[in-house]
């Protein structure tokens, strides 16, 4: 074993050890990167990357999509569009078996189309849909599980913060990643609804039918979702049609969300300021990790860790798809114990070159990574969405939320298998992109 390999392994162990004692993830990555780089190359070059890289990251205008899409999500959350989506979906689906659960999933999918964060989607829908489902006599754990699973759609259906981070880390086109998420996101909605149907067959008392809305109510409910549809088409239509860059689309999304909310009297200035502050808080936390992730990439480059890992994986007797399954298994298991954002930022720079060398499409791999993160967001013991929901509705209990989410993890497994078997599900829209 060479000195570089040993330092690389020790560096990764040190990062995990620091994470375990609750050092901020950015500080774990950054301090190990500087120390490791300094040991191998010298302290002066290590200081050099510390001087140049962070400022380049925070002032990179291409990365402004992160705060802007977060701000757009904050504005649409504050202006009550999630409630309109739920009302419309429930008016059309509520009377069906498990109808309100399916309406929640559709509303989550719709909300995901204008909001890039899974945790924010789940938190918003917990406020909107959970009281309704409980009032309708739904099992509380299952209701929470439905919302948790629906919330995960936030990072698959564009705009998605995780796709943006993947694009930044791998220098992949974020617009293509967004487009690649549309069909898999739609399939996920259908699979989650199928799961609801299976659950209804097994335990109909858990998901009682709601009342049937008349056609007037249904069409009226659709009138309210125009804002969501308009915003989605402005942002994604602009990107898909090649009319605007992703950064411009993000800016237009913020502007559109602000104008719509303001014109409808739902965004008092105090709420706008609160959304700005929230966007700042989330963006600062993400940028801090990005700064450190780039420092860590320098460290990985001098240790030649990605090449070594690539050689190691290539020697496995499984073939490329077998190696991909090993990587996916790693992501799912790691995501069960470590924050999924940290897993992605730590491992994508390592696995990405390996995957590309094996001949896999980088956009498709981005979709696969996001699916595995979705699974980890609702799986024990560190399912971030379940944790957030448990804080919001502690009377249901974390175990019951996990129990409610479990059937949807099975749906995610089917979904993952479909994407592995048919990569075109993620790629065909990208290939047709303008």
């Amino acid at each position, binding site marked *: 074993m060479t000195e570089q390999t040993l330092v690389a392994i020790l560096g990764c162990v040190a990062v995990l050890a620091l*994470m375990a004692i609750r*050092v901020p993830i950015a500080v774990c990555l950054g*301090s190990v990167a500087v120390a490791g780089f300094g040991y191998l190359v010298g302290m002066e070059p290590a*200081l050099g990357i510390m001087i140049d890289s*962070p400022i380049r990251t925070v002032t990179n205008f291409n990365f*402004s999509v992160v705060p802007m899409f977060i701000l757009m999500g904050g504005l649409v959350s504050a202006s009550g569009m999630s409630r309109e989506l739920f009302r419309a979906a429930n008016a059309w689906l509520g009377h069906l078996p498990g109808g309100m659960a399916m309406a929640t999933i559709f509303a989550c999918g719709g909300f995901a189309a204008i909001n890039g964060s899974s945790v924010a989607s789940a938190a918003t829908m917990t406020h909107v849909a959970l009281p309704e489902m409980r009032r309708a006599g739904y099992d509380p754990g299952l209701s929470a599980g439905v919302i948790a699973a629906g919330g995960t759609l936030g990072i698959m259906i564009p705009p998605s913060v995780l796709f943006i981070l993947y694009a930044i880390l791998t220098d992949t086109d974020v617009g293509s990643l967004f487009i690649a998420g549309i069909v898999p996101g739609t399939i996920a909605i259908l699979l989650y609804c199928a799961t609801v149907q299976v659950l209804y067959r097994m335990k109909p008392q858990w998901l009682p039918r709601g009342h049937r809305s008349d056609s007037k109510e249904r069409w009226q409910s659709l009138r309210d979702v125009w804002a969501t549809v308009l915003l989605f088409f402005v942002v994604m239509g602009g990107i898909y049609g090649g009319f605007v860059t992703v*950064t411009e689309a993000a800016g237009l999304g913020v502007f559109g969300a602000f104008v719509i909310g303001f014109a409808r009297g739902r965004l008092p200035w105090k709420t706008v300021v609160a959304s700005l502050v929230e966007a700042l808080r989330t963006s600062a*936390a993400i940028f801090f990790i990005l700064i450190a992730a780039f420092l860590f990439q320098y460290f990985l480059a001098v240790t030649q860790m990605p090449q070594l890992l690539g050689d190691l994986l290539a020697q496995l007797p499984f073939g490329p798809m077998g190696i991909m399954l090993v990587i996916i298994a790693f992501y799912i298991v790691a995501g069960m114990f470590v924050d999924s954002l940290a897993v992605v930022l730590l491992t994508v720079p390592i696995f990405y070159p390996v995957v590309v060398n094996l001949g896999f499409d980088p956009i498709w791999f981005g979709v696969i990574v996001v699916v595995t993160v979705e699974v980890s967001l609702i799986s024990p013991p560190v399912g971030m969405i379940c944790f957030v929901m448990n804080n919001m509705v502690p009377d249901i209990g974390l175990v019951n939320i996990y129990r409610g989410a479990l059937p949807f993890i099975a749906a995610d497994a089917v979904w993952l298998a479909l994407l592995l078997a048919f990569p075109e599900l993620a790629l065909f829209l990208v290939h047709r992109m303008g």
Partner: protein
Amino acid sequence: MKNFVAIVETTAGYFIGVLALITVTEAVLRYGFGSHIPDGFVVGQMMQGIAICWGIATATYADRQITVDVFYELAGARTRRVFDVLAYTINFLFMALFGYAMTFKVFDILRAGEISNELRIPLWTGYTLASIGILAAVGTAAIRWWQVMFQRQSEFSR
């Protein structure tokens, strides 16, 4: 201190708003009128850099950095204390290094005398405001380290 943090966050939040406004205006001017905001790109970059650096400072004070909590939550009081002392010390040391590097960068740009293309804005102004944010993060990391070490105020006991 909390009021000061709130004022800083609100100001930096407005910078994010201005960043969005610049982006939209640039897009409208470019596609609608074949024009652009003079140095809009540079100003946008600066706004973003300043907002993020000040955001890091306030996040450091409010313990809002992203952490892995699973082992901490499973640990007993004594182990948590050990974790706290180690974590906040490492955090402070890294921030100090970060602050030093940012200050060095500002002096580097100041020496080079870099200016923007159109309005000839000296670039050190934006970088200085950003680096002051990181220096403030060193300060907030020091305050939190002090509170944890000598007043036993971890995030969960505040």
